[in-house]
């Protein structure tokens, strides 16, 4: 436990000192200013536009953190021999868990800052918006969006862990993680269209099975749909939210466990 905490704290310190992380931290302010500037271009529903822009910013920020900072840290460990320093002192599982804990701590700090900036902007925006135009948006809507982004980025982290557990080079790790994540964002809407009742009756059985298999292979990133509801001040159905959380958590656990198992056996 002591070793885990020591390495996790060391990992967090490394992340905080990384130039890419500092750029992302500064980006929270840029995203906030951008949201205010963009919403000022609109005459009506400025608060919706503001929140829309903030959601885009939070999602991008969290995803870039995972693909650049987290993948960079793990890839550097495995390909440049930094892992060799730590592995004589602990098991591979503890080592990876400690590194991942440091990465998650860095993510939490980043998202906490982003949530604080977004909440301040939305609160200020609500203060200057007539109640009739707030559309049910409340000051804590950005916090909810940040929570969704957190879940999504943990999914991306599980993709990163899985990819880094078997890929062998820095480029390979970053490329595969990015492609997998990109597909996870893009494929659901395509698959949704392909699995409509009309299409399913037209295609052969094996094609339908293949489409469903692909659907199960990729995580459910449709949190964006719920985020849309939050942005538009609509109530988020609790069953839908619960299913989203459970399915994401399940996916994260399975992919992370697979990553840990593969990493325990790989040559370094």
């Amino acid at each position, binding site marked *: 436990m*002591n*070793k885990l905490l*020591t*390495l996790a704290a*060391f990992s967090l*310190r*490394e992340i905080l*000192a*990384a130039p890419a992380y500092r750029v992302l931290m500064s980006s929270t302010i840029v995203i906030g200013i951008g949201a205010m500037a963009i919403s000022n271009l609109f005459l009506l529903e400025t608060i919706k536009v503001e929140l829309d822009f903030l959601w885009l910013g939070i999602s991008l920020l969290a995803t870039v953190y995972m693909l650049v900072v987290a993948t960079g840290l793990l890839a*550097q460990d495995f390909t*440049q*021999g*930094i892992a*060799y*320093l*730590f*592995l*004589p*002192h*602990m098991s591979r599982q503890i080592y990876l868990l400690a590194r991942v804990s440091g990465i998650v701590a860095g993510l939490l700090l980043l998202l906490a800052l982003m949530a604080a900036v977004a909440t301040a902007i939305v609160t200020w925006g609500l203060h200057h918006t007539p109640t009739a135009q707030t559309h049910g948006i409340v000051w804590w809507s950005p916090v909810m969006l940040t929570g969704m982004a957190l879940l999504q980025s943990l999914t991306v982290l599980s993709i990163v862990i899985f990819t880094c557990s078997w890929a062998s080079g820095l480029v390979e790790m970053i490329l595969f993680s990015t492609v997998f994540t990109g597909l996870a964002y893009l494929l659901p809407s395509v698959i949704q269209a392909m699995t409509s009742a009309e299409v399913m009756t037209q295609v052969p059985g094996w094609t339908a099975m293949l489409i469903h298999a692909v659907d199960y292979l990729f995580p459910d990133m449709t949190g964006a749909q719920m985020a849309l509801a939050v942005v538009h001040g609509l109530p988020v159905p609790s069953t839908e939210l619960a299913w989203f959380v459970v399915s994401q958590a399940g996916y994260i656990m399975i992919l992370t466990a697979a990553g840990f198992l593969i990493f325990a*056996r790989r*040559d*370094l």
Partner: protein
Amino acid sequence: MPSIHCHDLSKSYRGATSLQNASLTLTPGSVTGLLGANGAGKSTLIKCILGLIQPDSGSIEGTDGASVGYLPELANLPASATAWQTTQVALKLCNNHADYTPSVLLDLVCLDAKHWHKPLRHCSKGMRQRVALAYAIAGKPQWLILDEPMSGLDAMGRKQFLDILLDLNRQGTGILVCSHIVPDLVRLCDRILLINHGRIIDKVDIILHSMDEAEALESRLMQTANQSYE
């Protein structure tokens, strides 16, 4: 402290044999050298002993529960961390606050105090090598495994490194070291294993640690290299 026994270790990468039925015994307190050309299988053997690589066949005994310090060939350290922070984390991971402090460790590896709080990305290769050695010895390990520890060091640095290693050995640390630099190996080791194409082809006991022994070993190495080219 038990000996480390390796029996018939073999390892191939995509059909290319890197290690072939390699067997060796490391006795406590001994200094064993691995000598061979590039790609002979020295690093693979070391990584097998450390458990970083899973051999295709063969077995290793005596490493369970043994404390091992490792200095890899590419001693990459987290670039943003300082020498002080790196040794501090090593001491915490080894839970060894009784024997060393970061300053004692960094003094031991002859790193000038003015470099202790510089990010490692601003340090030279030689300085980083010293920090990596400090990291490896932080836990006062029973075994120290070093992969090309002297590469990239100037003459003074090599001498200091050798003195540090000899001193550690006098305190009872067993050492396994691989290097291309024959005189350094002869000065340091009790026994040198010649490795070629993944096979341990000869074992040479070093008695006098003299230049004559180094020259004889060098010609033996050249002879082996020529035979493999033919």
